[in-house]
Structure formats: structure tokens, C-alpha cells
């Protein structure tokens, strides 16, 4: 019924379904027209608040932030919160973590330290650098210039290995895992041809590692060497290819006379520099020719950052046998990200504004399993917090992030008059927030280690999969640093709760701090009863309550 009405609307008023409508409205129409029944109710303010903070700031809000939002009567508060978070200092950090994990998959450092690479990503997201530009920087850096060397991690740490790079560039930039097309056309996926594999391969097959004295490993490139390939099923036929992106045109290569292949040749005992660099053609091939795979891949990835799964799912298997759940929507998103000049912040804003993003994670009781199937986006999914989200959220919930921020504020604003002068007169509000956030991160990021160690998938493996483990539970139940963090100190959560006497106030502060919502009646009563049962042991009782909520499924998932 709903579907036919929308179809009718499209027939009668095509103009309203196209560019006249904002993207978020187009998204909702596409999603809603494909629903089989009514979707889940809109998320409550508290559900939305927690979700938005986790997705756009990488951690839960403080109890104060939660209170302010929940008590704000404005009908525009959700939109305002999205904008506040997108322009806040944590958004860039959240995106840095997302793209670091997506592109480096927690692989151990080889030639470029992770800290430098992450600083590069952070800067890029702080400046809201367009996606195409970031990719261009990543694929262009050769490691020789200290200023751009961090961006070269993608190529250098993969040892400039052409097969490794072909696979990962295909997966990460084109949404196509073509590994199985290395030795023959993909056996199960008709769209993935061996020629695609080697066309991409040819951009990097001449690239090698060179040990530059004083600089470490850098990229060099040969001026010769052609790519031929043979299918293991048709061994008699040898194919040749130059650099070529999927079914796009072959990259034009200048005719180079024999003996003129190099600026710096292999005999000079230096980094070889070819007269014509095939690798240098790669960013242009990706970005200037009309390869919608590149745009589709980033549109799909950004969608999945907020929606928990790609329209094409898994993200790396975009092909006709695995069609998107909403093909026209993905086409629209693909066109939109390009039309938005790859502004990721603006794109995510549109997705965050949708009714689809702002649905409850509680299905309607009468809804069938098929109506609630995840690819319909009829109900918000449960998503495990990433190790970084979990670590930061634990620190936030227990009051350590806020304490650290206040400490930095105190250092900068109260005790250092010169610094205060600079902060209050010369730099803007945003830079001030950024400075404080950097101080918080300096102080607390080291605590993420145990969380990453236990909650991350193995390096190179899909990072969002994996069953929960008993070792995670043991860590949460008995391990450090959490047990120490539960001890009252300074202005942390348990210290604040100990200072309160009214059980109702304790319950409210506890729930707002950890679960970003006020307790229900039953939960208030439970807190009061727990405190009453253990009236001789208020301190331990408060720790127990805090631990229970912090370890609960409600905290573990983004819902």
C-alpha cells in the first residue's frame, strides 16, 4: 500500500522525488517505499542522543550533556545536536579511527608509524578535506618528503607489494575484493574479471621499495616491465594489459624510446625514477574518469558508518550478483557524494537527519522477522561498540574524560595567564575546544590499549565481525583499569555518587552517566532497594551498581 502511494506520487510529481528534495528526504522515501509494514517507532530522545554521540563523537555523552539535551523542549534539538557534534572536536577523531581501521585494518607498523598516519588522518578530517583529496594524498605520497610521508603508510606498509595493493585498493576504494580473480576470472562472481585485477595491478606493478639512507623505506618505480597474465584454466592464452581501471579506457602512455625509460636509472644506485610513472596515473584514473565504483564505494561506506551495514553488503562485494538492497538509493547517494564534492561531513549530516537513522532499535511487537530484516532499515540495528568507542565510553561514563578536560582547562585558563590570553583573545572557540580535546587525548588515549587488545579482531581480519569472548567478560569483570576506575577519586562517577544522599538522585546520575538516559520507575526502585539492602556499605554498593550497568548489554551495544 505505502509502496503504491509513493509510486503514484513519483508518477504525478517526479520533481519532488529528485533534486528538489533534500537528500535526507530522498533517502527516507526510498527506504520507506520498500518497507513491507510499518517500521519501528522513532527513537526516543535518549536513544537518539546516545547513538548520535557514539557515531559522531566516538563516545557516550556526559550526564550533563544528556540532561541538557533531554530537557531541551525545542523541536529542532536533534538537528542542532547533529550539527554540534559534526563541528565538534571529536568528530574528526571518530572519523580518523573509522578510516584508520578501514584502511590499515590494525596491521602492525612496518615503515610509517601509526601515530604519524593517524595524525595525518586527524588533520584531514579536522579540515574536512574532501574524500577524493585524501585518497589522492594517500596514493600519491612516496615517502621521500617528510611532510607527506605519513600518508604513504598505505603503500609503504604493504611493502609496495603489487598483489597486496591490488587486493586492498580494490576492496577499499572500489568496493570489490578481486583476490579470487588473480589466477582466473572470478569463479563465483561474473563481474570480477582477471583483466580488472591486472589492469589495477599494472598501476603498481613497477613500484618497489627503496631503502633511502636517512629516510627509511621509500617508494621507487621502474620504467619498464609489462603485465601479462594467464588464466589457470586457459594456460595457452597469454594476455597483456597496461594500467586500466575496471572497464574504463586504457591509460594513455607516452611512447618512450629505448634507453630513455628513466630519469634516475637502476645503475645510479639511487631511488629509481621513471620517465613515465604508472603509479602516478592511479589517482587521476580513480578520480577523474567516470568510475562510479569509486563513488559508490565511499557512499556505501559512509552509509554503513551510521546505518550499521552497507546498502551493498558486505562493503567489499559490489557486483551484480550481490545487488544493493536499495539500488536506486545507492545510485542517488553515489551521485550525491560526487555532487557534494566528496564532503563527508555534509554527507553524513544528511544520513543522520533521516527518519531511517532515527528509528528505535525496538521492533514493533507484531512485526514479522522478514519485516525487520536488517537490510530493510525498518528498525535500528544493535551494533557492538568498536574497541575505541568502548574504551572512551567507559572513561566518559566513569567521569575520567570530563575530569581530564577540566584539568586541561584549569592548566590553560587558570594557571597560565599567557596561555589564557591567547586562548581568550587570539584563537576562536573551536580552536579552544580542539586544544582541550587534544590534551584529553594525550592524557587518556593510552588507556585504550587493553580494550583494543581484547575487543578488536585480529589484524587484517574483518573488524566488525567476531563473537564475544570469555576473555572480554573476564576483563570487564575482574580486570584493570576498570576496577580501579570504579574506586571513587576526584570528580569521577563513583565519587560524585557517594556525595549524593537521595537514592533517586543517585539513580538518575548513575543512569544518565552510563546509559545516557533517566532510569525507569522499576530501575529507580531497584537502585533504591540495592542501596537500602547494603546501607552499611554504600561505597561498595555504588561500585556494584556502576559495574553492572557498565557491563550490561545496553552499554556494550550502540542501539
Amino acid at each position, binding site marked *: 500500500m505505502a509502496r503504491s502511494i509513493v509510486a503514484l506520487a513519483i508518477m504525478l510529481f517526479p520533481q519532488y522525488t529528485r533534486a528538489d528534495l533534500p537528500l535526507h528526504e530522498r533517502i527516507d522515501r526510498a527506504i520507506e517505499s520498500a518497507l513491507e509494514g510499518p517500521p519501528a517507532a522513532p527513537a526516543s530522545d535518549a536513544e537518539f542522543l546516545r547513538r548520535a554521540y557514539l557515531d559522531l563523537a566516538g563516545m557516550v555523552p556526559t550526564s550533563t550533556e544528556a540532561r541538557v539535551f533531554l530537557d531541551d523542549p525545542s523541536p529542532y534539538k536533534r538537528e542542532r545536536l547533529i550539527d554540534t557534534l559534526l563541528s565538534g572536536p571529536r568528530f574528526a577523531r571518530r572519523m580518523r579511527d573509522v578510516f584508520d581501521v578501514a584502511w590499515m585494518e590494525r596491521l602492525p607498523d612496518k615503515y610509517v608509524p601509526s601515530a604519524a598516519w593517524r595524525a595525518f588522518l586527524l588533520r584531514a578530517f579536522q579540515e574536512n578535506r574532501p574524500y577524493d583529496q585524501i585518497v589522492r594524498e594517500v596514493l600519491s605520497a612516496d615517502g621521500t618528503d617528510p611532510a607527506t610521508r605519513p600518508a604513504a603508510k598505505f603503500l609503504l606498509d604493504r611493502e609496495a607489494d603489487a598483489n597486496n595493493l591490488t587486493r586492498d585498493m580494490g576492496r577499499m576504494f572500489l568496493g570489490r575484493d578481486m583476490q579470487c580473480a588473480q589466477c582466473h576470472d572470478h569463479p563465483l562472481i561474473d563481474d570480477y574479471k582477471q583483466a580488472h585485477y591486472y589492469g589495477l595491478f599494472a598501476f603498481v606493478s613497477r613500484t618497489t621499495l627503496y631503502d633511502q639512507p636517512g629516510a627509511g623505506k621509500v617508494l621507487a618505480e621502474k620504467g619498464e616491465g609489462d603485465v601479462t597474465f594467464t588464466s589457470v584454466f586457459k594456460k595457452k592464452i597469454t594476455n597483456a594489459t597496461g594500467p586500466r581501471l575496471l572497464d574504463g579506457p586504457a591509460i594513455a602512455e607516452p611512447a618512450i624510446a629505448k634507453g630513455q625509460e628513466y630519469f634516475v636509472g637502476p645503475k645510479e644506485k639511487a631511488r629509481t625514477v621513471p620517465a613515465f610513472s604508472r603509479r602516478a596515473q592511479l589517482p587521476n584514473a580513480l578520480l577523474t574518469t567516470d568510475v562510479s565504483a569509486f563513488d559508490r564505494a565511499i557512499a556505501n561506506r559512509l552509509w554503513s558508518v551510521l546505518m550499521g551495514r552497507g546498502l551493498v553488503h558486505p562493503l567489499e562485494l559490489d557486483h551484480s550478483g550481490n545487488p544493493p538492497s536499495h539500488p536506486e538509493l545507492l545510485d542517488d547517494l553515489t551521485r550525491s557524494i560526487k555532487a557534494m564534492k566528496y564532503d563527508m561531513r555534509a554527507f553524513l549530516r544528511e544520513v543522520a537527519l533521516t527518519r531511517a537513522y532515527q528509528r528505535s532499535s525496538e521492533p514493533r511487537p507484531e512485526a514479522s522477522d522478514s519485516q525487520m530484516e536488517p537490510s530493510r532499515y525498518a528498525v535500528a540495528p544493535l551494533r557492538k561498540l568498536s574497541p575505541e568507542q568502548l574504551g572512551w565510553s567507559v572513561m566518559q561514563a566513569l567521569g575520567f574524560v570530563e575530569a581530564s578536560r577540566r584539568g586541561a582547562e584549569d592548566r590553560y585558563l587558570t594557571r597560565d595567564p599567557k596561555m589564557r590570553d591567547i586562548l581568550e583573545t587570539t584563537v576562536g572557540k573551536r580552536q579552544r575546544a580542539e586544544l582541550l580535546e587534544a590534551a584529553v587525548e594525550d592524557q587518556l588515549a593510552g588507556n585504550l590499549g587493553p580494550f583494543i587488545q581484547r575487543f578488536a579482531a585480529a589484524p587484517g581480519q574483518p573488524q566488525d565481525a567476531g*563473537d564475544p569472548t570469555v576473555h572480554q567478560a573476564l576483563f570487564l569483570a575482574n580486570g584493570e583499569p576498570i576496577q580501579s576506575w570504579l574506586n571513587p577519586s576526584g570528580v569521577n562517577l563513583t565519587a560524585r555518587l557517594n556525595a549524593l544522599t537521595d537514592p533517586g538522585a543517585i539513580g538518575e546520575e548513575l543512569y544518565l552517566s552510563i546509559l545516557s538516559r533517566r532510569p525507569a520507575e522499576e530501575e529507580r526502585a531497584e537502585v533504591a532497594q*540495592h542501596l537500602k539492602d547494603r546501607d552499611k556499605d554504600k561505597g561498595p554498593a555504588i561500585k556494584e551498581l556502576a559495574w553492572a550497568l557498565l557491563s550490561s548489554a545496553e552499554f556494550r551495544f550502540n542501539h
Partner: protein
Amino acid sequence: MKRCSHACGSAEHLTSRRQFLGTVAAGVGAASGLGTFVRPLVADELTRQERQVLVVWLAGGASQLETWDPKPGTDTGGPFRSIETSVPGTRISELMPLTAKQMHRIALVRGLNTKENDHGKGHYMMHTGRPQMPGVVYPHLGSIAAKYVTPETSPLPGYIHITPGGGGLSSADAAFLGPKYGALHLGNGQPPANTVRPASLNDLGASAREAVFQHANDRFAKRRRTAETEAYTSTFEQAKQLMARREVFDVTKEPERDFDRYGRHDFGRHCLLARRLLDAGVTFVQVTHSNYDTHNENFDFHLEQVGEFDQGFATLLEDLGASGRLQHTLVIVMSEFGRTPKINPWYGRDHWGNAWSIALAGVGITAGNVVGKTNANGTAVVDREVGAGHLFHTYMKALGLDTKESVDVNGQDFFLADPSATHIPELLA
């Protein structure tokens, strides 16, 4: 048909595991209700003895010439002699007199050619049955056993690795099977981390916080339909059971005289701990003995190292045999590679993957057997050459696992065992 790849410990997964093991009666589909299949599974659980695995990893690359394939009196043979064993006609190095008496329980593979001389790549190959390739990582045998043999309900981790080094959980071994099936390292035999309740928490506090935790989870799960919350909360139940059984990891509870029998050195103690873990029902136990990378003074090193190995290993094998546990336990003694027949100027032997040996015992293995042969001075395989892939298929067969099993990873199927290899029929009973 794509397999279900999401994380949950639901009963459906139990069935698929059982179907995979071939023990569920035909006609029990995953679609049937809980009541119809849980009961037969439980009954099956009780009657069937789970298979177990013991791997002794001789790190660095033990010399086949000073262990399983001695060549005394040749230009490559070195100073040690060979001795008779409990299997007439089979001789091994004199450095292993106790193991020689257990030879009737052991099968040797003497025609191993892995063509791999790199520590890291050899390690990967021997644990996964495949050469290392960029871009894709396969799970170790231990992780496969933890996923496909260990019952979902087991309170103990399925894959435990006793190492001389540091402890902790290594999810890398599990590759795409997921961290749950990673190796739990017991560094120098110490119990796993975080298995003791915080000192500040008394019994009352512990049960109080658990009650609140439980209520919170129930309230959250009530309004949502997902196996994920259940999988998450069940790990806390598992943690409790593991903590209750913490003594399983405490080797000091073993009788004093066994410490003498196994040898009063780290490896002896670790072998005794391995026995304790296997007795407790842990599916896969690996013990690492380090270090055999003898580029210098190969013979002095092997004299000492193999001596320790011989005592710990032979005693463990004898005990497993005597207790009957060997009937359902697969035993593998291996390294990343062997060592060069050629003795270098420093009396050392270098890395050598071209003609070397491993030893097997236990379930599914033809005891007393020798498969494969090297030439007179051990420089080449002359009969029944096999590689790591063949061994891997053989291990899986011995464990009753399907060598054609594949796993859906992000929409693509990956075979657990290299499809280009097959098992070694002569080795299998």
C-alpha cells in the same frame, strides 16, 4: 546458499557444528524448534568422547638428524648414534631413549618437503597447511579445533598454548574464525589473566552486582530480538565457570612425583600442565619447547634440548597411553622446518625445509608406522614425499573433521584445508 556468518551462540549454531561433525541424525533441520533437537544433542554429548589434540612445537626448527631420522656414520650424520626402539626396524636418535620406548605409539613422517626455510612462513605453513600469501590469512589448526570440536557449552577455552614467553589471548591464530577461537597463551604456564575476582569484592558484593547486571540485561533483551545480546551476556556466565575451574591451570596441584617423572625444567612442567589440561577436557593444547635454531653448536644444543624434550614428551605420551586418553587424542610433534644435513663451519645446522620429519600419535593414526624416506645422508626425500597441506588434511581427518569445510567471510567462501592437497592414507588407521 550463504552460510550464516553473524556472531551468536544460538542453538542453531550448535546444530550446524554437529552436522558438520556428522553426529546429528538426519532430518534434524536448523529450522526445527528448540525442543526437537536439543535433547538428542545432549544425549549425543554424553555418549561421544570429544577428540583432543596435543601439539608439541619445537620452536626454531629441530634437527631431524638428531631426532626422528638419524644418519649415523655418514658425512651429514654428526656425532650421535641411532638406537633401537619398541618398533623393530625403526631407529631414532640416541638422544631420545625414553621416546624410543614409546615408538609403538608413534608414526613418523620422514618424507616431508615443505620447501620453506623462513621461520615465520614455516610456522604459518605448519599450522595452517598452506603457504603464506599476502592478503589472506587462514586459521591455525588449534582455532579450527576450538570452533568445530569444542562444545559451545564448554567452560574452558578450546585452544590453549603453553609458551615459555608471555601470556594473553592471541586472536591472530583464529584469522577469520574470530577472536573467540584464538589461542589462550599461558605464559610460562601461568593461569590466564583476570580469572580472580577483585580483592575488594566480597561474596555479597559479587552476587549483588550480578543480580543488577542480570536484571539490566533482561530488561534490554526483552524488547529486542537478537542473538547478539544473548551471545554477549553468556560470556559472563562462561567467565564465572572458568573462574570456578581456575585450578585446572594450576600445575602445582599435580602429585610431586610427577614433577620428577616429567623433568624439573620448564618443558617438563609444561608437559605436566598439558596433561592436566587434557584431563580437564581442553580440546587443543600446544606446548612450545624453545629453542632449536642451532646455527651454531647444533650438537651441544640438541644434546641438551632433546634431552628435555625426551623426558617430558615420552612421559606425557606414556601417561596418555596408560589413561586411554590417547585413543581420542591426536598428538603432533613438529617445527617450522628441519635443519640442513650439511654441517656448517660453526658446527651448526641451518634452516632446511626440503627433507625433514615430524612425529604423530594417537587417534586415527597408524601407530608404529613410518611413512616416507630420505636418502642415505638425508639430503633428499626418495620415497613418499609430502608437504604441509597433506599433513593438515591428515590431522583434520584424524579429528573427524570435514576437509572440504568452508567458511563464509564477508560473502566469500574460504576452505579450511587447502583444496589442492589431500590426506596421507597410509598414516590413517
